[in-house]
Every structure is written in C-alpha cells, then in structure tokens.
C-alpha cells in the first residue's frame, strides 16, 4: 500500500528521531542516497549533524548538501534551531538552508545577524553572511551587523559581508 506524502513524511520523521541508532542511520542514509530532493525534514536532518554517531553525521551532511530542499513553512523551525543551538556545524547548516530559501527567510534576519557576529564557528559566520545576501533587501535590518565585519576579520568573511551589503542595498536601488 502506497503511503500518502503526509504519511511518508511522518514515517520519515519517526525514523529520523528513533532511539535506535541503526534505524536513524538507515533512514538518514536512504534519504541521502535517494537521488530526490526532500522537504519537510530540514530541521530534523540539521540536528542529526550533531548526532552521536559519526556515520549519521556524515549522511546528514551529505543529505543537506545535495538532497534537502527547505520550503517556506520550515522557516520558523530553522529560526528556532539557530536561536537555540551552540553547535557550530548546526549553525552552519541552518544558515545554509535559510540562504537557500532566500527572501522567504527574511524573518530569520535577526538570528542570522547574531550568528554572523557571535558564532565561534567561522564557517557558520560566513554562511550567515551569505544567507543574508541571498535574502536581499528584506534583510536590511542586518546592515549594522554586516558593517561590523572589518579588516581584522578573515578575508572570505569580509568578502561575503561586503557582498551581502551590496545585495541589501543594490537590489533595492
């Protein structure tokens, strides 16, 4: 019997949060190897980047890179993840997913700005700058944060922040 998309998503969520490591791993691997784009489990997969199992972490990263397509109704979940996490890799992937959403993730501007300035993970800060650039003028409230990135910061972060400022200003012109 074919499951409806809703049932399938529920089943997938169930497997991804299962107490049994092997079941979580299998679900994660299948997702990463499916060859299809999957929505609706973005936050769940991001949290698996910090799983205790190295194999799950690897598959989660692979899925996020190539198989996960966030959708607008997931923005609030992603904001919550970014607000609550202290894990640099979780921050990195959450910022990445918000960047992929672009302007529909404008509600994440404040948390992205915080990540940009406060994250101890350079890669996450860079992704936050990139995500703000992808959001565009709707993220103008992050301008002050972006302008705080200066010569003392790593070159790539400076470039990304500069690019984001141009995006926030340039597209509105």
């Amino acid at each position, binding site marked *: 019997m074919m499951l409806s998309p809703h049932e399938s998503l529920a089943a997938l969520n169930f497997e991804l949060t299962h107490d049994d490591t092997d079941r979580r791993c299998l679900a994660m691997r299948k997702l990463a190897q499916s060859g299809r784009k999957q929505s609706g489990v973005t936050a769940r997969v991001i949290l698996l980047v910090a799983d205790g199992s190295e194999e799950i972490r*690897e598959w989660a990263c692979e899925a996020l890179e190539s198989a996960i397509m966030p959708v607008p109704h997931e923005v609030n979940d992603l904001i919550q993840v970014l607000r609550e996490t202290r894990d*640099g890799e979780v921050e990195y992937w959450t910022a990445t997913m918000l960047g992929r959403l672009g302007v529909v993730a404008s509600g994440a501007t404040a948390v992205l700005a915080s990540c940009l300035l406060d994250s101890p*993970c350079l890669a996450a800060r860079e992704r936050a700058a*990139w995500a703000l650039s992808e959001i565009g003028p709707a993220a103008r409230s992050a301008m002050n944060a972006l302008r705080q990135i200066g010569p003392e910061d790593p*070159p*790539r972060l400076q470039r*990304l922040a500069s*690019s984001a400022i141009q995006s926030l200003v340039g597209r509105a012109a």
Partner: protein
Amino acid sequence: MSLLRMGKRLVRSRVSPIRFLGPSVSLAGLVAFGFMLLTGRIDLSSLDLRALVGQTGTAEVPGSPGAEITPVKLDRGSPRSADRIRIATFNIQKFGDTKMRKPHVMQTLAGIIGSFDLVAIQEVLSPNAMPVAGLVDLINRSGGRYEATLCEPIGEKDNSYREQYAFVWDTTRMRIIPYSSYVVADTADRMHREPMVTSFESRVPVAPGQIPFRFTIINAHTDPDVVSNKAVTNEMNVLDDVFIRVRDYEYTQHQEDDIFVVGDLNVDVQNLGELGQIPGMISIVGREPTNTAGTKTYDHILIDGNTTKEFSGRYGVIDYVSDLGLTAEQALEVSDHRPVWAEFSAYEIPPVFNVAQQSQPVR
C-alpha cells in the same frame, strides 16, 4: 622540502606524498609500509578574480551542432588500446569506512576503477587512507597493478566535515610525475574545497619519434551553494583563475600545455561561469546527465580544445543500471554520481593554432 617559484613568489612546498604501494603488497602490507600524505602546495592567494578573456571574448559553447565528440559505451571486456588512454572522474559519494565495509559495493567500484588508466576521485572520507587502500588492493588482487595518491582532508575551517581527493592509476600504463602533486593553497579562502593538482604521463609504448602524452589534472569538487552565476563568490569564477595559474606555472616549468579540470562542479554546462569562458575550454561530457538519477549534469572533464589535441573525441558516462546491470537502489549504494570518462592519445599531439578557428566551438 623543495622550493617552487610561482611568478614572483617563492613558496615552500612540503612534498611528502601519501601513496599506496601497489600490486606487490597485501592490504596488511600497505598498512605496514605506511602512507605519506601529499601536502605540497602552490600559493594562489593572489588570484585575480577577473577572468583573462581571450581574443574573442566569447565562450566556447559546448554542444553545438556538428559535434566531433562522440559518446560511446565502455567495453570493459576488451583489452586496453595500444595507443590510447582512458581517464575518468568519479565522485564516489561518501567513500569512507562505511562504504568500504560493503563487499558488493567495493567490487563494483573496483570493476569500474579497473576499467580506466587513471581515475580522479572526489568525496573520499579516508583520513586513515584505508578505503582507498582497500580499493586498490581489491583491483590488484584481480591482476591489476594500480597505485593511488590522496591529499589531506580539506574543507571549511571549523567544520568537521572534510573530504579528500584521490587519484588511482594503472602503473603499467600511467606514471605519476614525481613531486607534481599539490593542493592549491587558498590562503584567501576563496574556495570551500581547494582543488588537488597532479601530473601524469602515459607509459603506453609509443612509436619512434613520438613522445608519451603528459598532462596535468586539476581535481575539483565545488560547493553547490556557491556556484550560482549570480554570486560574486561563485566558485566557478575562482576555478578559472586556478586553471590559468596552473597552466602558466606548468608551461613555465615544464612546457606543459595540457591541463584538465575534472570533477564534480555542481553546475551544468550552461553555468560554468568564467571557467567556461576561457577561450578553447570545452566540457567533454556536455549536457549528458552525470548524476545517478539521470537528471542533472554535475560532473565534467574540461580541456582546452586548442591545445589538448590528444582528445580522441570519444567519451562516456557509465550508467549503473544499463551498463552494469545494477538495480536503481544498488546504484545509489555505489554513488549518486556516475563515472565520466574520456579517451586520449597515448602520445603527444602538438597543438595547431589557427586564428580563424580559435572562436569555433568544438562542440
């Protein structure tokens, strides 16, 4: 230590390659002998972001009518050509300990790799070198004489997810140029995963007066989120600078003009950015799908059609289902990417420069 002169800069290159001793040792022997990790670097931190656009200022557009390039099915049962070599690029999705523990997957990989004279591999997760060593060992147990080299794990700083590049080659038909391997030093952090560069030469016997084909390969795996043609930080607009600097260096040092860019670029042929705009640059695979699902073109073998006349015009993309008889699920266990290969002359063919032809697309 060796000192490499790169333009006006002197860069110290730590050359201590990790290599696997090939057919004469067992896997245990590989472990016993140990590995040397290749960490030699050439500093390209002063890359000019502007592409050096050639005379025409236009892009070589692959896929044009009247293409001379012919896709063919790989006949794995036939003996290797006496005057041609096959080079492949293969993103073996998450090629680490987990995949290594699957004998059926390793057998498939060994069969694929063993069909080629040289394979550039991406997405290796092999800090202890065991998965690649296991693959080489498996090939050699079937009578092969293969070796491999791979670089140190590379990726985002502060991020535990890092990958390696590897090259695996048939030592009876190819040789690695000693001390030619390095990872591009990306001190300005322009790329998520800086490419690995290595030079090889054919060992296929050539006729008197002919010179074995020698070339340099840039092995790359771009960040899929940073290859948008709208972005200032588009990695495709950095890879062109990498190609140009590597080409200039190799020509200055070794009179080498055959430079390939291979790997998972995460873009199709329409989105090669400034890399695709380098005069003469062609993607051999063109628009043919290279992901296992058969829906996207991510993987490329890029050459300068003006200089690399050794390309025979024959290439292929291996479909796991139709070519290897795997099920769709079995195929995805191997990788979400298909191997892509191209055939070249085993001996040098001088480039023929014709101004009238320079702007003609090869495909």
